[in-house]
């Protein structure tokens, strides 16, 4: 360990002497943050995504690379707000990398940079899978993505000062492109305002909040509890305009409700890469807005 540290400092000295250009090792808990780091750091960072779009970030199978990559990380970028409590603390415990522990500059939580919705006044376990800090699924509000981008860029500049000019320039460029895209999306999605939505799980809270859509029900009777017949029968009475689910959800409950009520269901990507053609943050929201509009103009 001590030898390791010595060789690290020697290495660092060499790097500072400008003999080589090391990459910043970034460990991203979810694909959306891997995509954001790519926008903000480009080729300066070597990025590892701990989970892919086909996985539920609440529960992750233990793979050796998770520990190995966190061990060598300079920065870990996660969602926070208890989303990763099922696995990240264990990976941190086994990786034993002091740089990326909570409270260190090398550990960044996206939910720290924004205000959270659905923060419970008091925690009642009977209310289902409620996150005490509020709803963690902030990646589906592009306005919040921009706030997170600013905070994340500041953090990159802090831990890798030698490249701070580059990070600042990349942030300006990203923010300009993002603002333009934001106006375009909001223009395109204007007709969706006020639409009544039945969701499968509450990862859509921030998306609905941004688009001014209204959640009138959810297929899960309580967060994290699978839909059951009694609850679905109740939902039948609820007037709605569309049902929203992610590729991770079982489509049967949504199909049943559609067959009973005629309310159409749409599968939206809940993160980067969840459906084909949503491989970066821009195409993620392009895809979401396009799919919602296709449903609107059927």
């Amino acid at each position: 360990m001590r030898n390791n540290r010595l060789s690290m400092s020697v290495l660092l000295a060499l790097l500072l002497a400008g003999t080589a250009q090391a990459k910043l090792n970034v460990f991203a808990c979810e694909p959306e943050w891997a995509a954001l780091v790519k926008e903000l750091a480009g080729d300066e960072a070597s990025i590892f995504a701990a989970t892919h779009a086909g996985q539920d970030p609440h529960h992750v199978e233990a793979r050796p690379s998770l520990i190995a990559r966190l061990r060598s990380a300079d920065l870990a970028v996660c969602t926070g707000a208890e989303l990763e409590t099922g696995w990240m603390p264990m990976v941190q415990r086994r990786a034993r990398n002091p740089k990326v522990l909570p409270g260190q500059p090398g550990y960044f939580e996206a939910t720290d940079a924004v205000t959270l919705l659905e923060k419970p006044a008091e925690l009642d376990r009977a209310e289902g899978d409620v996150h005490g800090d509020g709803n963690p699924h902030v990646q589906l509000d592009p306005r919040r993505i921009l706030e997170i981008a600013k905070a994340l860029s500041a953090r990159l500049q802090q831990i890798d000062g030698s490249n701070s000019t580059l990070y600042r320039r990349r942030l300006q460029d990203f923010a300009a492109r993002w603002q333009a895209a934001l106006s375009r999306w909001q223009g395109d999605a204007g007709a969706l305002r006020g639409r009544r939505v039945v969701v499968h799980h509450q990862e859509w809270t921030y998306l609905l909040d941004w688009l001014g859509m209204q959640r009138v029900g959810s297929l899960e009777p309580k967060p994290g509890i699978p839909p059951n017949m009694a609850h679905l029968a109740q939902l039948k009475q609820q007037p709605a305009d569309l049902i929203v689910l992610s590729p991770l959800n079982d489509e049967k409950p949504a199909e049943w409700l559609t067959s009973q009520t005629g309310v159409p269901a749409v599968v939206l990507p809940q993160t980067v890469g969840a459906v084909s053609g949503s491989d970066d943050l821009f195409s993620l929201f392009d895809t979401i807005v396009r799919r919602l509009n296709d449903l609107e103009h059927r």
Partner: protein
Amino acid sequence: MNASDFALLGPPLIAGAVVLSTHVPLGRQVLARGIIFIDLAIAQLAGLGVILVHVMFDQPGGSTVQFAAFLAALGGALMLRWAERHWPGVLEAVIGVVFVLAVSAALLMLANDPHGGERLKELLAGQLLWTTYDDLWLPAVVSLLILGVWKTVDVAHSPTVFYALFALSVTLSVQLVGVYLVFASLIIPALATRGRRGSFAAYSVGLAGYLLGLFGSLMTDLPTGPSVVWAMATVALASAFLRRTKPQTSN
């Protein structure tokens, strides 16, 4: 992958050795008694105990949870011991029924508490790779105690002692390595080496399975638990095949 990554395998390998130390002799008994699925039933009952404690108390302490898990497992084990005495012909069927009752009871209780669902999952899907050396003290000490009792009591003729030790052992091991690896560690080495005297061959099959599975998982970056299950089965098949082709000397 580089050399320092091999250090990752230290704690899981020791965890495997700790689990095998008790599960090889226990597994031979399980096989001899024809109660193959008892560990699934007992593990589910341990999980049920945990859920019950969470339903009854808000924020119970870790030792309370462990105690509840063990009590539920012990109660189930003694009940199965009773069934063995009174309905010997249908014991495996009774074990199966206990298993589905325990799973269904958990689902019914969880209808209003999804966190319990996460807990049940955690309890049954212990993740080998997350194990640290600190996690291994208690299981190691308890395993030594179990082996001590094993040496002094003739378990083949004191079934009640066997069932109690089994409940204790499975309650701990399931949290370390998960229910599938508990099943594999119990049954596969015992199955591959049945008819042999001494436990050396059985321990070898088990340990080789853990070693091979852990290295395979490191090389391929696939989930560790399932990799070890497959590696152990592969080692067992290979050893059975080798025995078949060699002239029998060990019996």
